[in-house]
């Protein structure tokens, strides 16, 4: 059963904004799946039914979309989704060792979530950070030029300090190395969960909100 009525007022407002941005309601399925993921913690069947109700699609139509894209996590993920790029350029510079170190440090196999629900670990295909290889993302926020040892430190830091907002620049400064290009000034927005951080979805947290 749909639990749309339980959605926060904020999420409903954002859903309406997204729906009005397209000439066709169906086009809002992808952004709505992100908003639903934020609201419900995963893109499970309930979330898919919510999106079906919002767009006028059947639950099966929404599921066909949700199951196609890797970033819709239908079974939920831990507090920190650590994605390790293992595509060609990162591979050439030791990404498999970085992945191995992260798996070992978090005691979480590739593709799984730790028992305490803190970490989910996945290897991913190219994330467009080849000049700063090897690269990882935490809740889709980037760290470039990482090493095995720094990757372990990153995991220990996440576990120990449990940042509410994951900030690329902060992680890059603490654990990163070579970047693909000069990042410029630090970004004060980051991720509050394993949903890409965007104002439109309500998934962007600000540094000033960090306790």
């Amino acid at each position, binding site marked *: 059963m749909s639990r749309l009525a339980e959605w926060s007022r904020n999420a409903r407002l954002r859903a309406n904004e997204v729906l009005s941005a397209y000439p066709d309601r169906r086009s809002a399925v992808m952004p709505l799946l992100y908003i639903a993921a934020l609201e419900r913690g995963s893109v499970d069947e309930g979330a898919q039914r919510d999106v079906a109700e919002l767009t006028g*699609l059947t639950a099966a139509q929404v599921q066909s979309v949700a199951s196609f894209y890797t970033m819709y996590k239908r079974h939920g993920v831990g507090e920190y989704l650590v994605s390790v790029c293992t595509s060609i350029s990162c591979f050439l510079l030791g990404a498999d060792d970085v992945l191995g170190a992260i798996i070992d440090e978090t005691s979480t196999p590739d593709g799984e979530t730790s028992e305490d629900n803190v970490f989910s670990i996945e290897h991913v295909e190219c994330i467009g950070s080849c000049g700063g290889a090897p690269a990882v993302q935490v809740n889709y926020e980037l760290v470039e030029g990482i090493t095995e040892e720094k990757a372990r430190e990153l995991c220990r830091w996440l576990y120990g300090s449990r940042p509410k907002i994951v900030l690329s620049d902060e992680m890059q400064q603490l654990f990163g190395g070579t970047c693909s290009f000069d990042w410029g000034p630090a970004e004060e927005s980051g991720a509050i969960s394993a949903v890409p951080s965007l104002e*439109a979805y309500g998934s962007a947290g600000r540094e000033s909100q960090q306790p």
Partner: protein
Amino acid sequence: MTSILTARMNEYPRDSHELATYEATGGYTILRKALAEMSPEAVVEEVRASSLKGRGGANFPTGVKWGFLPPLYPRYLVINADESEPGTFKDRQLLERDPHQLIEGIALSAYGLEVNHAFIYVRGEYPKSARRIERALAEARGEGYLGKDILGSGYDLEITLHLGAGAYICGEETAMLNSIEGKRGEPRIKPPFPAVEGLYSKPTIVNNVETISNVPWIIANGGLNYAAIGPEASAGTRMFSLSGHVKRPGNYEIIMGMTWRDFIYDLGGGIRDERALKCWIPGGASAPWFIPDLHLDVPVTIDDTATHGSMLGSGAVIVMDETTNVVAAAHRIVRFFSHESCGLCTPCREGTTWLENVLLRILSGQGRSIDMDLLLDISDNISPGLKWPPAQTTICPLGPSSVSPITSIMAYFRAEVEEMIASQEAIIV
């Protein structure tokens, strides 16, 4: 060195993405001028005269593509920011460091194409790029560069940011349109081409981020002046993403025409730890590989790269040194295509899976003497004749792209593959 796309971010490294910096360096004056003084046809004519070719991978002339639009409305313009070809990270820099340049380029292009609604499709793994675009769009709307009656011209344009969710295939233009329509990102059979029947079945132009980021310069300086930069068939500057075993990886905006030797050894600073260069991929994971003996003195141009059996593609140059196990490298690229295959066409879905499995068998120390022929046979079933440019049995070029690493290692490193199979040594488990 002439820089067009990266001029502002080079000069103002701290705030090139800010609206104030953009406006202070002449930003949006070209849009103001074009809306006041130029007809839509005149804008299209400048882009046609510039000889600009698409920077997403196919190198198709932008002006020619624009000319395919029938006189039907509404029309849509879709900006492809789904940069996912392994090795490519140039569009990310343009999105993050100069978002207003792209937005002005979109506004100029949309005005020329008589489009009132454009979309920017940013890949889901680029949230920072998306946030910069999101903010820049809000700023541009606030200043009246977007929205109703732009700068009092009577022209309306809305731009919608659409975030992908992790699917390389959505970089294929028709898959992208399906994705924006809220469907699975599966490619469509062409024809009809998007220009005739695209987004919501309306005439649609799909262009890459770098392509459209060139448009403000072209309109400001004239198409012919753009065409005059660099070799005739490779006009303008171009962004290359250099990665792998080089000393200075990064994005380089260059005028095409230098040799690969200069590109790798001067721009890239040569190979790390002074090792020997083994091979490189000149245009993204889909491109056939080059080797030092044959290709170091080939000029970096669209035509010369094609003549030598490869492509500049998305501008991603991936360098491998002598320590690289080419079977492992080929496996890593094939695994990518296997993972990203949408599963619609049998030769791609089955073929990429089998290529991956056979390569894994070799890497596991269990290769068989028939495996080299088997790899070529599977490849031939995905792309008959194993020619370049590849023949296609599938709806989109993803399947045929997976064949490039196979034909490359067979052409240049056959003895090494043979030796690996014979040794029965596992390098991964």
